[in-house]
C-alpha cells in the first residue's frame, strides 16, 4: 500500500493520540470497581459503541472480506442473523441478571448460581482462551505496522504494547470503553470511505450485482443449500443463530464486562440493544470490501488467498490520503479488541482466581493494585507470546476450536441457570463438563463446527436437566434474584435486588 506523506502523519497522529486520550481517564480510578467496571458509571451509548469496537477485530476485516470474496453475502449472517437476535436476548434476559447480581465476571455469576467448581472451570477456560488470543492480536498488529509502514516487526509489537498498555493499565475499563468509542468512529469513517469509493467504481449496488452475479450466482444469497460445505443454511440457523452467536453476546467476558459497567439497569439493557443498530451496519464495513475486490480485480492471481481481498482494496482502490485513514481504522479495530481482552483477562484472574483462592479479604486498594500489575504482566505476556504464535500457524485455528468446545456448553449452563430455578450445582457441573466432552468428540469425528456448537449445546442442556432432576434442588434464598421468572414476576425479589444494587453502590 502506498503509505507516505499525509497517510503517515494520520497514522502517527492517531497512534499518539489514543494513549493520551485513554490516560485522561486515570483521574476517575480510585477503587477496584472503578478499575474493573468503570465505577458503574458508563452511559448506554458509550457501552454500545465499545461493544462493537470490541466485537470487530482486524481478523474480522480480513476474514469477513475474504469470506465475502469467496462465498458472497452469506458472510453477513455473522453480523445479522448471527448477532441481532442474540443481542436482544442478551439485553432483555441475560444482562439484567448479571448487572443486578453485582458480579464482575460471567464465571462469578455461575459461581453464585451453581458452585465454585463451575465458576473455576469457566474461569480457567476463559483465561486460557483470552491469554492465547492476546499473543495472536499482538503479532497481527505488529505485522500490520511492519508490512505497511516498514517498521521493524519486534519494535512494532513493543510500540503497540506500550500504546495499549499505557491506557489500559492506568484507566481500566473507563479508558478502554472511551477509547473504543473513538476507535469505533474511526472504523465507521474508514469503512464509509471504502464504501463510497467502491460504489463509485462499480456504479452503485446494481452495478456491483451485475458484475458479480453472472459468474457467481449464489453470491447475493444469505442462505445457501444444505449441501454447501461451509455454510449450509440449517447450520447457519441452528449452529450460528441459536448457539454460537448467543454464546458470544450473552456469555463472552470481554463483551459482558462493559455492560456491567453501566450506570443503571436500563443503561445496561439499552447498551446491547443500541449496539444492535450499529451491528446492522457492520456488513457494510467488513463484507462489501470483499465484493468490491471480486468485482474490480481483473487479475485473480493478485488475490491468491481470499484473506488478501481487503488489503487488495486498500492498495488498489484508495487514493493517497485516504489510505492512512483506512489503515488507522484498521489499527483501531485491533486496539479496541486487544484492550478489552487484556482488561477482561485481568478481571477474571483477579476476581475468580486470586480473590477466590489466594487472598479473600484484602482491601479494595490491594485488588486495584493487583489488577494493574496483572494487566502489565498480560501486556508483557502478549509481547513475549506473539512470536510464538507465528511459529505455530495453526494456533489461531486451535484457539477458535477451543472456543467452539465450550461456547455451546457455557450458553446451556448460563441459560438454564437463568430460566430454570430447578437447575442445581450438580446439573451445572455435569452439563458444562459433559458438554465440553461432547464438543471434543464431535469435532474429532469431523462434524461441521456449526453442528458441533448445536449438538454440544443440546447435550449440555439434557445432562444439566437430567442430573438436576435426580439431585437436590438449590435453596430458594440462594437463587433469589438470579432466576428470570422470580425477578420478572415477584415484587419481593425486585425489592431485594433494588436493595442489593443500592447497597453495592
Amino acid at each position: 500500500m502506498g503509505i507516505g506523506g499525509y497517510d503517515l502523519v494520520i497514522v502517527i497522529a492517531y497512534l499518539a493520540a489514543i494513549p493520551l486520550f485513554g490516560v485522561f481517564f486515570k483521574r476517575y480510578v480510585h477503587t477496584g470497581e472503578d478499575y474493573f467496571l468503570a465505577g458503574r458509571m458508563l452511559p448506554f451509548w458509550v457501552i454500545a459503541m465499545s461493544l462493537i469496537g470490541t466485537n470487530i477485530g482486524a481478523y474480522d476485516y480480513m476474514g469477513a472480506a475474504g469470506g465475502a470474496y469467496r462465498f458472497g453475502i452469506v458472510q453477513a449472517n455473522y453480523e445479522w442473523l448471527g448477532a441481532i437476535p442474540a443481542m436482544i436476548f442478551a439485553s432483555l434476559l441475560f444482562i439484567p441478571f448479571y448487572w443486578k447480581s453485582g458480579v464482575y465476571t460471567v464465571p462469578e455469576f455461575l459461581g453464585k448460581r451453581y458452585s465454585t467448581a463451575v465458576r473455576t472451570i469457566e474461569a480457567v477456560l476463559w483465561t486460557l482462551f483470552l491469554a492465547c488470543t492476546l499473543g495472536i492480536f499482538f503479532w497481527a498488529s505488529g505485522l500490520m505496522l511492519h508490512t505497511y509502514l516498514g517498521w521493524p516487526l519486534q519494535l512494532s509489537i513493543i510500540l503497540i504494547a506500550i500504546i495499549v498498555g499505557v491506557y489500559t493499565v492506568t484507566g481500566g475499563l473507563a479508558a478502554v470503553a472511551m477509547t473504543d468509542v473513538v476507535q469505533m468512529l474511526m472504523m465507521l469513517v474508514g469503512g464509509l470511505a471504502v464504501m463510497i469509493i467502491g460504489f463509485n467504481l462499480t456504479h452503485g449496488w446494481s452495478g456491483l450485482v451485475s458484475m458479480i452475479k453472472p459468474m457467481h450466482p449464489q453470491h447475493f444469497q444469505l442462505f445457501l443449500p444444505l449441501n454447501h460445505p461451509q455454510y449450509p443454511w440449517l447450520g447457519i440457523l441452528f449452529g450460528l443463530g441459536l448457539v454460537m452467536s448467543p454464546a458470544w453476546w450473552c456469555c463472552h467476558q470481554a463483551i459482558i464486562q462493559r455492560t456491567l459497567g453501566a450506570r443503571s439497569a436500563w443503561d445496561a439493557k439499552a447498551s446491547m440493544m443500541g449496539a444492535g443498530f450499529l451491528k446492522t451496519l457492520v456488513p457494510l464495513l467488513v463484507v462489501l470490501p470483499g465484493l468490491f475486490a471480486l468485482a474490480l480485480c481483473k487479475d485473480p492471481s493478485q488475490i491468491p488467498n481470499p484473506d488478501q481481498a481487503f488489503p487488495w482494496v486498500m492498495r488498489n482502490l484508495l487514493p493517497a490520503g485516504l489510505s492512512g485513514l483506512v489503515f488507522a481504522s484498521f489499527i483501531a479495530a485491533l486496539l479496541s479488541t486487544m484492550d478489552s481482552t487484556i482488561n477482561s483477562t485481568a478481571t477474571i484472574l483477579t476476581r475468580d482466581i486470586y480473590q477466590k483462592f489466594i487472598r479473600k479479604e484484602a482491601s479494595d486498594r490491594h485488588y486495584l493494585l493487583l489488577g494493574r500489575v496483572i494487566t502489565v504482566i498480560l501486556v508483557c505476556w502478549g509481547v513475549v507470546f506473539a512470536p510464538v504464535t507465528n511459529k505455530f500457524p495453526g494456533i489461531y485455528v486451535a484457539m477458535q476450536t477451543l472456543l467452539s468446545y465450550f461456547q455451546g456448553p457455557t450458553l446451556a449452563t448460563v441459560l438454564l441457570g437463568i430460566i430454570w430455578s430447578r437447575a442445581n450445582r450438580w446439573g451445572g457441573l455435569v452439563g458444562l463438563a459433559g458438554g465440553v466432552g461432547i464438543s471434543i468428540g464431535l469435532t474429532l469425528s469431523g462434524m461441521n463446527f456449526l453442528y458441533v456448537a448445536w449438538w454440544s449445546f443440546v447435550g449440555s442442556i439434557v445432562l444439566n436437566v437430567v442430573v438436576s432432576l435426580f439431585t437436590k434442588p438449590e435453596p430458594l434464598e440462594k437463587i433469589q434474584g438470579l432466576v428470570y421468572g422470580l425477578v420478572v414476576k415477584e415484587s419481593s425479589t425486585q425489592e431485594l435486588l433494588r436493595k442489593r444494587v443500592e447497597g453495592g453502590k
Partner: protein
Amino acid sequence: MDLSKIPLFWAVIITGIIFVGIAIWAVLHPRKYIYEGAETKARWRDVRIWAVLLMAIQLAIYAVWGG
C-alpha cells in the same frame, strides 16, 4: 431423502418466524422491568420498541436477500 433439495424458501420462512417470535417476546415484557433504572419514562427509552425495530429491519433484509 436428499436434504439439499429442500427449497431455501423454508430457511427464509423459519427465520421470519424466529424474528417475529423474538419481537413478540420482547413486547410481552412488563413495562416496569423495561424501565427499571431509567431516568425518565420517555417513550424513546422503551427498549421493547428498539427490539421490534431491530427485528423489522432483519425481516426486511432476509425477505430481500434470503435466498
